[in-house]
């Protein structure tokens, strides 16, 4: 970059170039947020001739009505399960792939496939695979009844487990549980699909982070006496992956809050609102039931969470810079 004396010429073309972007930013990004914020204090519906203000009633419903408290629970469960799990799996996969000598690219490609495939399509396929009678998963488990597979998978070989009363045995008797139809299992299954889809993305980010760790640092650790993989991980790998981890947590969390496809395709928020996540709630309440006010309130809550997260990430990254 050459150092030059500051030119005082204004490039007026600049105004033309940024104008469309500014207009769109305001109209498409900023104005809608203001609208959402405003409408969250109303009970507006599309087609109403006028807007009537209801103050904090919508927010009040969110903490009191069971539909909405279940929404919070479902969303919170999903986020708190998917984020750590997909990050840990992504990190684990990255560490493993980084340390084996062959087939690294093959594993990387396979694990990244779910990220590329339309989640809606794959959610439907998962639903089919986990179908109580047709699904390949349940069928395979059922075909293992009475065979060696059962004795292994029921954990009967652990001394304190009674093989007869194990989950596998019960499944063989009464049919394997309905992953989606059972209100206790549905949210976990949705979480599973979310983890399946997300961890490949985190894995790739971690792989990039791992290759940027200086080898000399590992050498120094070795000389210092860090013999085991755990020592090396704790002393060099994990600290050096700090910035990557902060980023991964933020991105995965924001995406988790935005889950919609799996729920709309399979459970429609049920059974009994156990999978009634925020984005689906907005869809059902605001679009389907035309309760725009309520939908706006949920939008505002969602926005607040995400903003806090992102700002938190920025702050953490600023503080943790390892002047190296």
């Amino acid at each position, binding site marked *: 970059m050459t150092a030059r004396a500051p030119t005082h010429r204004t490039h007026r073309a600049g105004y033309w170039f940024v104008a469309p972007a500014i207009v769109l930013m305001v109209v498409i990004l900023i104005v809608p947020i203001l609208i959402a914020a405003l409408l969250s204090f109303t009970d507006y519906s599309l087609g109403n001739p006028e807007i009537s203000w209801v103050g904090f009633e919508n927010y009040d419903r969110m903490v009191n009505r069971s539909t909405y408290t279940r929404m919070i629970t479902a969303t919170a469960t999903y986020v708190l399960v998917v984020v750590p799990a997909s990050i840990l799996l992504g990190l684990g996969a990255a560490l493993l792939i980084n340390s084996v000598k062959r087939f690294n690219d093959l594993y990387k490609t396979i694990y990244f496939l779910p990220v590329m495939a339309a989640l809606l399509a794959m959610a439907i396929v998962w639903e089919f695979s986990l179908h109580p009678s047709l699904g390949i998963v349940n069928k395979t488990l059922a075909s293992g009844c009475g065979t060696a597979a059962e004795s292994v998978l029921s954990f009967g070989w652990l001394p304190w487990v009674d093989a007869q009363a194990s989950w596998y045995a019960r499944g063989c008797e009464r049919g394997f549980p309905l992953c989606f139809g059972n209100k206790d299992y549905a949210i976990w299954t949705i979480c599973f699909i979310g983890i399946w889809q997300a961890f490949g993305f985190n894995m790739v980010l971690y792989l990039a982070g791992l290759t940027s760790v200086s080898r000399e640092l590992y050498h*120094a*650790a*070795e*000389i*210092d006496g860090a013999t085991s993989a755990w020592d090396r991980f704790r002393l060099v790998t994990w*600290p050096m992956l700090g910035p990557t981890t902060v980023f991964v947590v933020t991105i995965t969390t924001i995406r988790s809050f935005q889950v919609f496809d799996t729920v709309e395709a399979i459970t429609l928020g049920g059974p009994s609102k156990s999978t009634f996540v925020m984005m689906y709630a907005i869809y059902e309440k605001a679009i389907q039931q035309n309760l725009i006010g309520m939908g706006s309130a949920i939008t505002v809550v969602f926005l607040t969470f995400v903003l806090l997260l992102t700002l938190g990430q920025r702050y953490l990254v600023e503080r943790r810079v390892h002047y190296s």
Partner: protein
Amino acid sequence: MTGIRLSGITKSFGDTSVLRGINLDIAPGEFLTLVGPSGCGKSTLLRIIAGLEEQTGGDVEIGGVRVNNLRASRRDLAMVFQSYALYPHLTIAENMQTPLKLRDLTFWERFPLIGRLWPNYAAKMAALNATVRETADTLEIGHLLGRKPGQLSGGQRQRAALGRAMVRKPVAFLMDEPLSNLDAALRVHMRSELADLHRSLQTTFIYVTHDQAEALTMSDRMAVMVEGNVLQLGTPEEIYRTPVDRCVAEFVGSPKINIIPGAADGNGRVSAYGTPLQQRIAGKARRIQVGIRPEHLMLAPEGSHNEGWPFRVTHKENLGSDFFLHGHLNGSNHRIIARLTPDEVAMVTIGSEITLCPAPGTPIAFDEGGRRIGFVKDRQ
């Protein structure tokens, strides 16, 4: 104090041979430098001694014990890296604690957070911290213990890296070009500090550098390496005065040694570029090469033209304390550099012709293949 012995160390990466059979006996407590141009294999050899790389063939013995199968962490060696390799997320104190923690604390005592609950933890940490403090004070970085590497200057980081190596009181220190990231003035200062440190610690230092000046000033002995071989092992004095071949002679000393064609007559009397020298060699008459260092050339005293070389000056470099004169010996294209004092050079201008002669006893003779030919005493 422990000695280190390398026997027949070879190392190849696939078809490329990086080390071709290294034999070195490093005496206990000595400061040995591995010096050579880039790519000669000195860093690889150092890493093999450290245990960070495995040799293709040969043995490494530390204190008489063969350590080929011991990994780096068990060889009781310490290493200072070119980039210092300080843990960027830890303070200097924590950096220096790390080797001690890994050695003295058990797995559970080291575990984050809950390690503190172990009964011996506090006592061990106190002893550890005392060692760290002591070492830091020796290196005069005690006031920096609370800072992170990123907040330190290059020289301070270097000392911190040294500190981390020293706390373990290893049997030998391995240093991989530790001064090359420092600026020139700091480098000169650190050279003497390292030499002092060596004297006070009385531990074996194995030092790798491509800078021959560092090697000459700091080592007890130096090993000149070129392309995977040790060409010569000796004291700096020996390497400087009696290099084993032209390669070593040209590597050591700055600017490079001048090489002029010469001859030996039937009696072994040596002449260089037509001018007879005072030395004699054994053997029949043949052509030889004569090496004469720039600092050993002087202005011939008045009236002794037949004992010097006519020299046409093409370039003068003023270094303040000395002058470097570049030029040619009359009638040839051989470029010669001479280092002269300001007084000698006062009247010399570019284009002028002067006569240079060597200081007594300083020329070195090489045969046509480059090996040094030793001088024999005059019989007469």
